[in-house]
């Protein structure tokens, strides 16, 4: 009965376009007031405040700000030149450049839409000029942007880590191998398309051009090296690394590239504040819903219900993957993580699944969700740039979605893919 109230309440509120953050809090407050009286509202207000003070989440505004600062400079053009000099000589090289740059750049600012817009507005018209179909250009841009969600630094992983009480640094490390595998598989798919459609090579490989492009993009490349090196090396925490990222982005954009001015800076900061607040309000109100769900023992009952069905770890993971796939089609990434993690974590712990591995499973499902309409902001952005129909593009995008699903299955059923590096460095 209570579950029905929560589900129906949430559905109606979301249907009439109440922001998801408010819908979560409202359902929780009404439920708590019904079961425990009006005094619950004080508890809800306090829990909302506490939810917004979750220390590991401090990394979010700082990484978002660093990304927004880098977005305002010519980093995308420099990275495209470098990747083009590196792999542009292969048939279908421009599509591979798109994948390579996206792996580095996408999801950098916390706003997938802004990142895809930055890359897509340069690469999609260039691909169309080189005889790629607009649908293929949109599909490559969109799906390669989504694989970046598991390549550090990842806002989705920070949110998951904070909510699941899992090490954010270990999540970052766990994402490297699946991220690179996914990227390489997408490049292979681009090559297959290129051979089939007789798509051109870019220019011949030239060491001089590569060196020039490397020098131009060198500082931009130094940013992740310094920050991730610091975090993985145990010199700084993820939050401190995010703070250093802001300083480094200011230094590179303002002093080295001399492209940052007050207008850029102000825009980047407002962007950073808005993205952070949208995610953090969700975290804050979901803390109230989490409190209510725990009080009425929903996570525990959910775990018991699933365990009654099966206690086979892999069958449970298959069930969760199916559920997350459907949720990903209808919810934005951050909202899906915030809603799902508190409910499923008791089950994950009970059945003995490594929370780091499940973090990867969760974020990969988000990546797939970004590609599956009706709610697929990354795909919609790519299609808007390419001026293609979303459903027609989705047909071309299916092989790329299958790559994402392949990586998801690999991470789900071969834990070593995500956990080996973690075991080597941290256990």
């Amino acid at each position, binding site marked *: 009965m209570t579950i029905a109230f929560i589900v129906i309440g949430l559905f109606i509120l*979301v249907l009439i376009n109440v922001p998801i953050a408010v819908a979560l809090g409202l359902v929780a407050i009404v439920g708590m007031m019904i079961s425990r009286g009006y005094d619950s509202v004080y508890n809800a207000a306090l829990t909302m*405040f506490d939810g917004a003070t979750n220390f590991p989440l401090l990394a979010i505004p700082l990484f978002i700000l660093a990304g927004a600062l880098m977005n305002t400079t010519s980093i995308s053009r420099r990275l495209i030149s470098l990747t083009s000099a590196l792999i542009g000589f292969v048939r279908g090289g421009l599509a591979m450049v798109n994948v390579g740059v996206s792996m580095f750049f996408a999801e950098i600012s916390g706003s997938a839409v802004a990142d895809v817009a930055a890359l897509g507005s340069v690469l999609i018209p260039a691909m169309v000029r080189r005889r790629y179909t607009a649908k293929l250009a949109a599909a490559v841009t969109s799906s390669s942007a989504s694989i970046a969600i598991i390549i550090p630094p990842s806002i989705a992983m920070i949110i998951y880590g904070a909510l699941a009480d899992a090490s954010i640094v270990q999540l970052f490390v766990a994402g490297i191998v699946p991220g690179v595998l996914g990227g390489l598989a997408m490049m292979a798919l681009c090559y297959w398309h290129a051979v089939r459609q007789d798509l051109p090579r870019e220019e011949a490989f030239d060491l001089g051009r590569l060196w020039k492009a490397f020098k131009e993009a060198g500082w931009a490349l130094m940013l992740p090296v310094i920050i991730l090196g610091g975090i993985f090396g145990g010199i700084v925490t993820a939050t401190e690394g995010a703070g250093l990222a802001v300083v480094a982005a200011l230094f590179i954009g303002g002093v080295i590239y001399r492209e940052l001015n007050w207008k850029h800076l102000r825009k980047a900061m407002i962007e950073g504040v808005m993205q952070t607040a*949208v995610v953090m309000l969700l975290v804050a109100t979901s803390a109230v819903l989490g409190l209510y769900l725990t009080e009425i023992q929903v996570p525990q009952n959910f775990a018991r219900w699933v365990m009654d069905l099966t206690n086979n770890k892999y069958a449970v993971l298959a069930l969760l993957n199916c559920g997350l796939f459907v949720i990903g089609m209808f919810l934005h990434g951050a909202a899906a993580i915030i809603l799902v993690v508190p409910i499923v974590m008791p089950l994950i712990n009970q059945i003995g699944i490594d929370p780091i591995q499940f973090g990867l499973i969760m974020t990969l499902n988000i990546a797939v969700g970004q590609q599956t309409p009706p709610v697929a902001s990354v795909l919609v952005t790519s299609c808007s740039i390419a001026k293609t129909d979303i459903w027609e593009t989705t047909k071309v995008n299916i092989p790329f979605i299958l790559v994402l699903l392949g990586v998801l299955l690999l991470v789900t059923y071969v834990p070593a893919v995500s956990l080996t590096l973690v075991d080597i460095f941290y256990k």
Partner: protein
Amino acid sequence: MIKTLNRWFEWLLEVASIILLISLALVVVLAVIFRFSGSSLVWYDEVASVLLAWLTYYGAALAALKRGHLGFAGLFLALPRKIRSLAFVLAEFFVISFFLAIGWAGWYLLGVFGEETLISLPWVPLWFTQSVIPIGAALFIAAEILSLPDAWHKALVGTDYEKQEIEEAIEEARQSS
């Protein structure tokens, strides 16, 4: 009149949020410097967490003013115009009621904290740090009301905020490339 008020309110929220964001970044960077110099800041965790909460509430009001919070407009926009208008009024009622309840509870709690202070900074009273609950709720309600006329118009003609955001992001990216 509403447009002028809207602009001033947006400016005020932007200034407050930017100050909070810069403070947060400075606190984190200072903490790193002090930790490496061998004298960690004892107040770092507590102050940074409070700043994050403040940033959340002030930034949330700014996002509300620009109608930037995550929703699911697809189903709403598919509703017939008359039902959509009714749904819009109901949604606004629910949003404002939620923040009225949170703001009222937050205001009441300020009195309950009495003489309590932060643990690492005993001269900072808890009522000061938690004042963001009623203030943030009031700011959210104000943002919701000030953006209401524009949102009402867009709801009636069926404008999708997400689509608008995507178009703006593409336009900006085109200009900068």
